[in-house]
């Protein structure tokens, strides 16, 4: 069973501090949905609101169409996986997993059978009688997932559960979680500040900034069609050039910046008109070396540093006015190489640049 989760104008306030502001989103049953944002953006508060540990100051949470107001966390069809997992250290693995059944008064043999089943599902067979502390980080992770699934929730809430794992294991667990989600067939709501996690696992992502949901879309849309300057700067790397709109046409806008006039596409529902303050975003992979100085969308710069990462060269450039820029060159043997310290000219296509209304950028 999987349920829709509807957030209607959720606001959460702690004294003077507004943690979440008018958050509205509908999460479809069976979806892998992520809230992505920097720490302190209110995503954990939102998750606690869904699970029932936090009461919203305004708005409603509906699960499967039912208003959750007045329903405690122990009576909601949700299960939460905590950032530190919060496994019970004084219980064995199988007792941990079957705790939700123990609460329901299910007998010991049946509990044990179900725990073994779930251990099978999270690819951890034969570990039932161990104590939690005897497990490795990744194994604990799986036990936490199994324990939550044992409650047969309609919605599984995950609060950055992978953040304590090392990189290799984290990447492995991403795939694993996705597989478990498809097998369990329930709604997953995932909280993370790691855009890699959000983009690779999710059906849809909500990008949050200071308590506000900026954009809700699938991964490619969030990356290619950012709605706000914050989304453009937070998701993936982006070079930002501030300016003002000089001309608007149906296919493109011209933005005048201190480094020249750039022709860009617009994105999403954001509308720009002449004279508006705007920011031009160009992805590092959209930049390329050019020879024809003076044409449109050209920049003179100095190549400050080059980092080799195997499939990519990551270059650090400095524009004429000292503006730092990042550029990625694919290592396929065809792209040209430049000496560090040399003066270069780089360019981009109209399609490779997005103009968005001025707004807050993500902190580096």
């Amino acid at each position, binding site marked *: 069973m999987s349920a829709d989760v509807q957030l209607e104008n959720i606001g959460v306030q702690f004294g003077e501090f507004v943690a979440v502001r008018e958050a509205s989103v509908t999460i479809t049953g069976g979806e892998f949905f992520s809230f992505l944002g920097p720490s302190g953006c209110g995503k954990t508060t939102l998750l606690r609101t869904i699970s029932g540990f936090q009461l919203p100051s305004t708005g409603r949470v509906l699960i499967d169409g039912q208003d959750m107001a007045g329903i405690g966390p122990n009576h909601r069809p949700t*299960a939460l996986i905590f950032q530190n997992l919060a*496994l019970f250290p*004084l219980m064995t693995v199988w007792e941990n997993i079957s705790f*939700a059944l123990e609460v329901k008064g299910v007998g010991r043999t049946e509990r044990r059978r179900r725990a073994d089943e779930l251990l099978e599902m999270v690819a951890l067979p034969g570990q039932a009688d161990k104590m939690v502390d005897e497990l490795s980080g990744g194994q604990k992770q799986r036990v936490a997932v199994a324990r939550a699934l044992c409650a047969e929730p309609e919605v599984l809430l995950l609060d950055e559960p992978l953040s304590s794992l090392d990189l290799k294991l984290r990447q492995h667990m991403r795939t694993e979680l996705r597989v478990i989600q498809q097998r369990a067939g329930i709604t997953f709501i995932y909280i993370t500040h790691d855009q890699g996690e959000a983009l690779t696992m999710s059906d849809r992502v909500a990008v949050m900034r200071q308590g506000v949901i900026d954009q809700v879309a699938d991964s490619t849309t969030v990356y290619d069609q950012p709605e706000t300057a914050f989304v453009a700067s937070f998701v993936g790397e982006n070079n930002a050039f501030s300016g003002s709109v000089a001309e608007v046409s149906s296919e493109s806008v011209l933005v005048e910046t201190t480094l020249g006039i750039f022709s860009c596409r617009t994105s999403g529902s954001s509308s720009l008109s002449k004279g508006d303050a705007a920011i031009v975003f160009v992805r590092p992979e959209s930049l390329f070396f050019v020879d024809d100085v003076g044409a449109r969308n050209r920049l003179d710069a100095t190549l400050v540093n080059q980092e080799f990462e195997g499939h990519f060269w990551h270059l650090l450039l400095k524009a004429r006015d000292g503006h730092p820029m990042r550029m990625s060159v694919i290592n396929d043997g065809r792209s040209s190489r430049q000496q560090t310290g040399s003066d270069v000219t780089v360019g981009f296509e109209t399609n490779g640049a997005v103009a968005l209304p001025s707004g807050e950028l993500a902190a580096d």
Partner: protein
Amino acid sequence: MSVWFQNFFKRNGIGLSLFLLIAVFVWVVLMIVLPQLLMLDFSFRFNWHHMNPSKMGGPDDVYTLTHYKFLVYGSPNNPDPFNIVDVTVFFRTILAAIFVTMFDLALCYPIAYYLAQVAKGARARFLVVALIVPFWVNEILRAFAFRILFGEEGSLNSLLLAIGLLDEPVDFIRENVALYAGLGYAYVLLMIFPIYNAVESLDRNQIEAARDLGAGWFRIHRRIVMPFAKPGITSGCTMVFMLTAGALALPQIIGGPSSLWFTQIIYQWFNTGSNWPRGSAYAIVLLISCVVLLLFLMRLFKVRIGEIGR
């Protein structure tokens, strides 16, 4: 062993090492073990050993079980099969100490939990101060205050009569209510703080995780908080039980006129009875019974002795 000493001296320096060794020796051996061993030895001697040292080392100076026998069977002229008075007092003292300990646990566990997990900052500090300050009042004074509170003309009776719960005053002192209340109150801090210490280190997410999985408050406490706080609960119960069973001043002052505390009998043998060996025997029986009972209970609740120190 000598390697251990070498390392010990190397790690702490000569000054600190000597201080630690001497302090521990004086404390453990001279002040705890040795006097108890002397008491043990005393309890197996005839009373003249205490009264008439000139006979010491003579042919009559042999070990005897007479005092232990007296505790169980009374004097040779005793018509009853047992020393009913002393044995009854002994068991009543132990049972009363268990009761006071359970009462303190029931009272202090919620307070300790509230302090450790619910109250925050200034409120928690205020509560701790409010708990500690009354103990600035000297124990004897507090005991007499309880006499006033629980006496037949006392505040409690006046209150209960005024609100109509009682038709005529109850002698709470005769009924031992004052004694149990006084003993319970005397050791609340010794129960609260060990439990507080244990519960405070419990990750709040554990509680929320259990709640999220459907558990109600009772189950959360039974399955998560209490097992985690078990060392603290054990150490609190141990202290309260030992001190209650060994209390003297409070039973003396606010105990009912007809009910003796076992320590009062011990005191009588040492003092008015002028029979130190018999007093020693009684004291040793109380000590060993309490320790055995505690070890049995710890085994029952699967607590290892090392855990108490945590």
